[in-house]
């Protein structure tokens, strides 16, 4: 019954934290305890083992479990070292809700449920409020659901071979729309709280959703597997180019961060498109980087971005190096796997990706500087994020083993 508990504990934790919000300490304790219980359940899950307690067969794969754990770690990092003037109880409530949703998506037995759950999460996320009107907040995720649904329908139709290709288009486009990558970039308001902004999709919910969609899509349309992979790589390269350039050249600092997530997702899509073990390993490490490194740094840099503070201290430059995927951080290991996978698949692809990787530096320097001068707990948080990234970069085996690779 671990999958059920992995969903239930964080969900209840989210509700309790929200209810107890007027008493922050109690809310935090309740949320932390139930969240920890949920993570315990995730840890206890035997990958692939099905649980049928509620009449629905729930199972969590090793890779999904790894992503759930890293999402929880990221949330813990953010709650333990919160950004200036952040309401930790609210962060925890929505973080736990997100983890519950992610656990549900990870455990869902088929793509129908994954899409329906995505729609439910999209509605809840849109209902959070924020600076944009509800219709605008709902537009891209709902389009994603529709496209995924159409793709799913096409995948199940009998007839011409081209139907499978249409299915691939629907699933890829739906995934891009759900994540908010090019060409379906979510409308982004720099002043919007992170929990209600598209960052929640691209940096927190996105990884598990992408994993669920891509792994199931491969089973659904085996005849269009090559087209599916090619589209993933094509869309990935497009996002690498766009994300890198836009993140470097855009005027607004917050938007630069938003685009940098897209660039990272470009690499992830390329990695998922490379149908060898190294590609999957690269994808896992890159997703770890997005959730465990880029997301916390983004949250920690928002205040200094508002105050337009730019600093060149060692911590800023190390953060820039981490964001750029320079050695010895995890990004370099991921890039190494990506190059190796691409070499096995088709070496010119490795050349293109390799050239694309150089686009990370200028924006990363900019983003690193926008971190300002972290002090006290914040500095400790940044140091921990950097250390985790270095540890994964030098010794990625435990993470890969956790992901079943």
């Amino acid at each position, binding site marked *: 019954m671990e999958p059920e508990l992995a969903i239930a504990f964080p969900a209840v934790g989210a509700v309790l934290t929200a209810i107890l919000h007027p008493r922050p300490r109690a809310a935090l304790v309740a949320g932390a305890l139930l969240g920890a219980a949920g993570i315990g359940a995730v840890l206890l899950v035997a990958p692939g083992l099905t649980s049928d307690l509620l*009449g*629905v067969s729930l199972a969590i794969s090793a890779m999904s479990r790894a992503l759930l754990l890293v999402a929880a770690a990221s949330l813990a990092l953010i709650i333990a070292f919160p950004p200036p003037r952040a309401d930790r109880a609210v962060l925890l409530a929505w973080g736990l809700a997100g983890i519950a949703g992610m656990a549900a998506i990870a455990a869902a*037995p*088929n793509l*129908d*449920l994954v*899409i*329906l*759950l995505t*729609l*439910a999460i*999209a*509605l809840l996320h*849109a*209902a959070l409020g924020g600076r944009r*009107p*509800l*219709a*605008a907040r*709902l*537009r891209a995720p*709902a*389009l994603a*659901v*529709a*496209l995924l*649904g*159409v793709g*799913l*329908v096409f*995948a*199940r*139709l*009998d*007839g*011409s071979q081209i*139907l*499978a290709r249409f299915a691939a288009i629907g699933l890829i486009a739906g995934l891009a729309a759900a994540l908010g990558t090019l060409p379906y970039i979510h409308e982004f308001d720099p002043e919007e709280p992170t929990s209600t902004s598209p960052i929640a999709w691209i940096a927190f919910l996105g990884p598990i959703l992408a994993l669920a969609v891509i792994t199931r899509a491969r089973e659904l*349309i085996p*005849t269009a597997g090559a087209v599916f992979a090619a589209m993933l790589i094509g869309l990935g390269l497009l996002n690498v180019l766009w994300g890198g350039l836009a993140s470097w050249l855009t005027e607004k600092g917050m938007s630069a961060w938003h685009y940098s997530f897209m660039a990272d997702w470009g690499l992830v899509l390329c990695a998922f498109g490379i149908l060898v073990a190294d590609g999957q390993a690269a994808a896992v490490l890159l997703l770890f980087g997005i959730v465990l490194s880029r997301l916390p740094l983004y949250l920690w840099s928002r205040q200094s971005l508002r105050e337009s503070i730019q600093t060149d201290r060692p911590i800023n430059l190390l953060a820039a190096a981490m964001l750029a995927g320079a050695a010895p951080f995890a990004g370099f290991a991921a890039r190494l796997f990506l190059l190796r996978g691409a070499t096995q698949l088709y070496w010119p692809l490795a050349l293109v990706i390799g050239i694309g990787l150089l686009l990370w530096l200028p924006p990363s320097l900019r983003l690193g500087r926008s971190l300002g001068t972290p002090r006290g707990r914040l500095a400790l948080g940044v140091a921990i994020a950097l250390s985790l990234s270095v540890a994964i970069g030098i010794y990625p085996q435990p993470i890969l083993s956790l992901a079943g690779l």
Partner: protein
Amino acid sequence: MAGCAGRPGIRGYALIADSFLTAVAAFAAWLGAATIVLADGRRGLGVGIALVAVGFTAIAWSDGVWVGGGFLLVGCAIAVIALLRAGPQDWGLMPAGSTSRVILAVAVGIVSLWMAASVTTGPGASLRFASLAVLALMAGRLLQTNAAVPALTGAAGLAIALAGASQLGPNDSGFAPYVIAAMVTAGALLLPAARSHGA
């Protein structure tokens, strides 16, 4: 791409599945979706979502998924009540400048019909038509509107269509999709944003 072949549920009810009843149900679903596209008022949206739900419920029942269909009806009923209890009660059907919406509704219907009947093969044509039409029209509605209630109604329509489409799968997906769809349908229109005045 196993499609419906080898699926006892469909094979057993193949005749019923493509009977006049399911055809009418599928047409009702498309009509409901078209109404959601064409209406800006709560009553129009309520009728639209009701038609969509009834259509998919009928198809589900004709496929033997009695419990799932029931869940859809319940969820839809809550949604319609929520729609009709708050905000200004008007139809808002085809306001000025709706030509493009009419064209969208008709075009999607025709293309879906062509896809379901000609391009694809095997039983379950009505379900294929309904699913494609409603998904496409709801997507169009969500892209087109800037108001909360039509967007939420569109999301509800999406949920119902997705639940119905789950029957196209090679394996019996049980009633879970219907339960979640019903919760989404009801929940969408119970959200505070849906209670706000105006549509």
